[in-house]
């Protein structure tokens, strides 16, 4: 339980004591009135106790919202770090492949070490349900974290207080009214936590199942709404309506079946408790009164005190869904992400103070001074083999990449082009052969620092142009940003926008054209100062003008930068220094474009298939 929750618990205890005092005082007032003695003392005691109770409930209730915010921050901070520090190869690319795990990871930012260490075991991501990779994690990090914080702040403390409070009530009842009633009721009260444990266990399954159903029905509804336009054009609006109605009806039928069971248990719980507890209290008090052991005022106090004894069960009923949702989400969260340890439970201000020290990935000096064009070999692949999911997907690749060279990798889908790119990026390890970077065997850390991949669909983050560029180098100056934009031939278009570098790019770069997105990603890669640029299908899905612009950008970089081009469209590989043709995981040909066109392999055939398309 979070430490602050103990404060709320203690205040609840104080409130219970004060209310018990109030009810006992009311009993005394009744007795005094019946005996025709002075009632003032009892009334004053009751008034003071009542005021204390009101104040304590107020303060106790004001703790959870703050605590909730703190917990939310703590869990989310730890979760997002675990998610971001996890192997991206498996989640970012084909979800179906069951990608192998990276043996060694990028150097984790030092102070995220605690969370990272825990997630570092390479736990498979919980994506069993299919769908878009990472969507479950997004839900966990938004709604899930809210549920967890709500549960930890607003259920744990108050529930503990409610379950322990009856002991206090009975202690006072025993001391001031009658020990026998108190002892009998205490035995009954002790049964409550056992009952509650039992029910919590029985409930978790149905609650989780219900949430899944409800989520699925909502997702279905939104999907059909989004597709409505297409459905109407296909004349399939009835299919859509059926689909919405069926999902909702299935939810209703199953949820009601679940509820019928779970509510029955609440009913039994509730009825048993009020039956046993309140009936026993009233029966005992009546019996003791008739024996002359207690007064009418004591009887009244016992009746009023049953409301305090009833609290735990009422609490359980009301915050039941909070508890169930929170516990389910917390379980999922610890499974897929991590549990925040003490090391991560610091305020953002503290972490912010540390960040500038660790962010640059490369030494600054490397940045503009990259013209030292040594003629040496940057990269050498010697009989390289790669396994994925226990299968060899790439074998016998031998290639020498000199500085400033442009190498194109082509081949039909599934030939292993993207796998090769990921190996060079250091995202997946090679199984056999050698991979030398500047003459030395390269591990994934060295490769991740040396290479930058511009993905086929580069991801553009919501925010400004400058924010997107600085992802690669947070401390870069505006001048440096303009320099890389110039190299990527995007400078004029950005300068023409009224807000320049501060232009908002929109969700998924929606405010930019496809060609601008590619060039922005290229500029971002250049800013990182990487020695090797890997471009995955840099011109796919672009119209001709945009394709020409990106092509020009890449040609402009050739010579100064070492480029690996993964290409579907062969037209864009004509200017490469060398072309490596992969087929079914093996190198089929290697040579310059003219040589390959002269042969009768894939390159010549596929080029003919494309037509004179320039």
């Amino acid at each position, binding site marked *: 339980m979070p430490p602050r929750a103990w404060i709320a618990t203690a205040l609840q205890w104080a*409130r219970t004591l004060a209310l018990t005092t109030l009810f006992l005082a*009311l009993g005394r007032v*009744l007795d005094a009135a*019946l005996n025709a003695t002075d009632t003032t003392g009892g009334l004053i005691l009751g008034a003071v106790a009542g005021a204390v109770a009101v104040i304590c*409930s107020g*303060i106790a209730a*004001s703790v959870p919202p703050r605590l909730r915010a*703190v917990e939310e*921050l703590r869990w*989310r*901070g730890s979760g*997002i*770090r675990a998610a971001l520090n996890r192997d991206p190869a498996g*989640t970012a690319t084909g979800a179906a492949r069951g990608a192998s795990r990276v043996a060694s990871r990028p150097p984790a930012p030092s102070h995220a070490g605690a969370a990272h260490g825990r997630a570092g075991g390479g736990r498979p991501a919980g994506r069993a349900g*299919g769908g878009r990779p*990472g969507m479950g994690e997004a839900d966990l990090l*938004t709604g899930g974290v809210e549920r967890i914080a709500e549960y930890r702040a607003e259920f744990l403390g108050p529930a503990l207080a409610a379950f322990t409070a009856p002991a206090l009530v009975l202690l006072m009842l025993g001391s001031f009214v009658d020990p026998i009633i108190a002892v009998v009721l205490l035995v009954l009260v002790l049964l409550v936590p056992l009952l509650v444990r039992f029910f919590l266990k029985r409930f978790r399954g149905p609650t989780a199942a219900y949430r899944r159903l409800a989520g699925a029905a*909502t997702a*279905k*509804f939104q*999907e059909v*709404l*989004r597709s*409505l*336009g*297409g*459905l109407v*054009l*296909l*004349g*399939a609006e009835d*299919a*859509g*309506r059926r689909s919405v109605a069926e999902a*909702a009806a299935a939810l209703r039928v199953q949820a009601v079946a679940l509820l019928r069971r779970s509510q*029955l248990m609440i009913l039994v719980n*509730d*009825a048993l408790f*009020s039956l046993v507890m*309140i*009936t026993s209290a*009233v029966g005992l008090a*009546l019996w003791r009164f*008739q024996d002359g052991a207690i007064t009418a005022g004591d*009887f*009244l106090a016992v*009746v*009023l005190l049953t409301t305090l004894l009833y609290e735990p069960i009422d609490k359980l009923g009301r915050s039941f869904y909070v508890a169930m949702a929170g516990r389910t989400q917390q379980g999922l969260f610890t499974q897929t992400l991590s549990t925040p340890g003490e090391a991560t439970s610091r305020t*953002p201000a503290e972490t*912010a103070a540390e*960040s500038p020290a660790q962010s640059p990935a490369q030494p600054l000096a490397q940045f503009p001074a990259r013209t030292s064009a040594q003629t040496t070999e940057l990269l050498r692949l010697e009989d390289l083999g790669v396994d994925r999911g226990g299968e060899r997907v790439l074998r016998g690749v031998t290639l020498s990449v000199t500085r400033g060279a442009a190498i194109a990798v082509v081949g*039909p889908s599934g030939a292993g082009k993207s796998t090769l790119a990921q190996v060079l*990026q250091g995202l997946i390890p090679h199984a056999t052969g050698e991979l030398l970077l500047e003459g030395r065997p390269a591990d994934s850390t060295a490769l991740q620092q040396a290479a930058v991949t511009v*993905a086929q669909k580069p991801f553009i983050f*919501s925010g400004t142009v400058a924010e997107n560029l600085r992802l690669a180098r947070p401390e870069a100056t505006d001048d440096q940003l303009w320099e890389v934009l110039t190299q990527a031939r995007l400078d004029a278009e950005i300068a023409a926008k009224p807000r320049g570098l501060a232009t908002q790019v929109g969700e998924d770069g929606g405010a930019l054209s496809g060609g601008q997105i590619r060039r922005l990603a290229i500029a971002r890669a250049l800013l990182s100062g990487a020695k090797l640029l890997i471009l995955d299908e840099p011109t796919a*899905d672009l119209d001709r003008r945009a394709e020409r612009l990106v092509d020009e950008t890449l040609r402009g970089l050739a010579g100064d930068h070492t480029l690996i081009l993964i290409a579907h469209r*062969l037209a864009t590989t004509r200017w490469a220094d060398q072309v490596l043709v992969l087929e079914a995981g093996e190198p089929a040909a290697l040579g310059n474009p003219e040589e390959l066109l002269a042969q009768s392999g894939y390159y010549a*055939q596929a080029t003919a*298939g494309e*037509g004179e398309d320039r």
Partner: protein
Amino acid sequence: MILHLLTLARGSAGLLALSAFARTLTLLCGAALLAYPAWLVGRLADGQQVPPLGSVIAVMITLAAAKGLTRYAEQLSGHTAAFALLEQLRVRLYEKLIPLAPAVTASRGSGRLLSAATRDVDRVEVFFAHTLAPVVTAVVIPATAVALTWTLTGPALALGLLLIFLAAAATLIGLGRRGARASSTAAVRARGALAQEISDDLRGRQEITIFGAQEQRALRVDRIGAQIGENSGGASVLQGLRAAAGQGWQVLALFVLLLLGLPQAQAGVIGYTELLLVLALVPGTAPALAAIEALGLSLPAALASAANLRELEESSPEVAEPKHPVPVHTEHEAAASVSFHGVSFGYPGTEREVLQEVDLRIKPGAVAAVVGVSGSGKSTLASLLTRVWDPQAGEVRLGGTDVRELSLAALRAHITVVEQRPVLISGSIRENLLLGSPAATEEQVLAACRSACFDGDIAAMPEGLDTQMGAEGARLSGGQSQRLALARGYLRRSPVLILDEITSAQDPLTQAEILRRMPEATSATVIMIAHRSAVLRHVSSVYEVDAGRIRAAAPPAAGA
């Protein structure tokens, strides 16, 4: 507006009423569980006879059992009503949106509009299913308590109790409203930004790893989270006040009743029986009154949501159905001509004219290509032909008839658009193939898949046509989705087939094969929209769209 809100719940009114009634009984039993023993104490204090212990226990057991049963009935009927209501509201929204489609999903910001509509539906559901019954009982139960107090002890105590109930209700509703306002502005915006940021981070994970920017991005999440946390101060004060008010009115009521009633009891004006019974009504009604708070929070939200939904339902469609539709005329049996005459069009709410005085004539059965850079208005031509929108000037004709004279259903049955990013719904491959032509036979389906080069993909799938593909076709690659959509397009056998960038995600060999198989798959008029000239070797005429104007380009020489 309240009337409109109520009409939304008409379908589940019976169950909702049942749930409210059961809740009232539950709360009455709960109050009786306190009032009955208090009455006993009063009888004893007044020196009167009380029932024997056995009868007392029997009454208590009966009350407890009744309370449990009615609560079960309340929960079950309430939840059943909630789910039924959700289903009705969703289907209703869907139906009201059909006339607005496709424009409603094609325009900018449609995603936001639709998720807002979903949220509004949820709010209306929450109001009826989870707020209405508690609020009703929050009024009924205290009112009953006041009436009972009046009957037993006369006006003084009853009026005192009434005033305290009113003050407590006003305070709780007021605090609830303030809470709602505080949470509905800055925090909601910050939550939206946070969700966006996290979704970006997860989808951009590869880039983040490549640049080692994990901590940089995590700190941004922390910062937005801290902004949300800043609001917790206000919420914390409000929640404290709420709890204090909830406890305070009970303490106050106990003392007011006692101070007013005790002298009367001592003077013998009323009995202790009546006084204690009335005192016990205070804790007895507390559970009911606590729910009144939700009224300040949930009713305004539900009213606003009902207003939003009504506005959406009542907005007029972009295109109107003709009063006297004429039947579609097609020149050939399976092919119709398509022509544009001086068509100008700009998207509603924008200045720019996407198309300017476009003239275009495509003969029945021809295979024509429309090429141009992205954003040049190529796809808009297809939207005008299917009447997603109507042009501001000029005329679009199908088979020589102005499309505005044809019924929308007939028009859309005669034209099939295969989109670059096709509509796929979760379900099996087969269900998606049959979306446009539910009556197609297995052979027709397989033949269409063969023509679309989709047969190999199906053969490779574990359960063939019955393979489930996940939400929005998540298990299919871009190329596979396009081939599925093409097969679905062939299946519809409409006289006009528009292929919008359907080969953009295909590798060169597959692309060539698709085009090679096309002539045997369809005899319809085919319009191919593309920015690549690779498709052009298979067409009879080419039109190039450039800056909103169109011109005929020479078809490329065969084999070039």
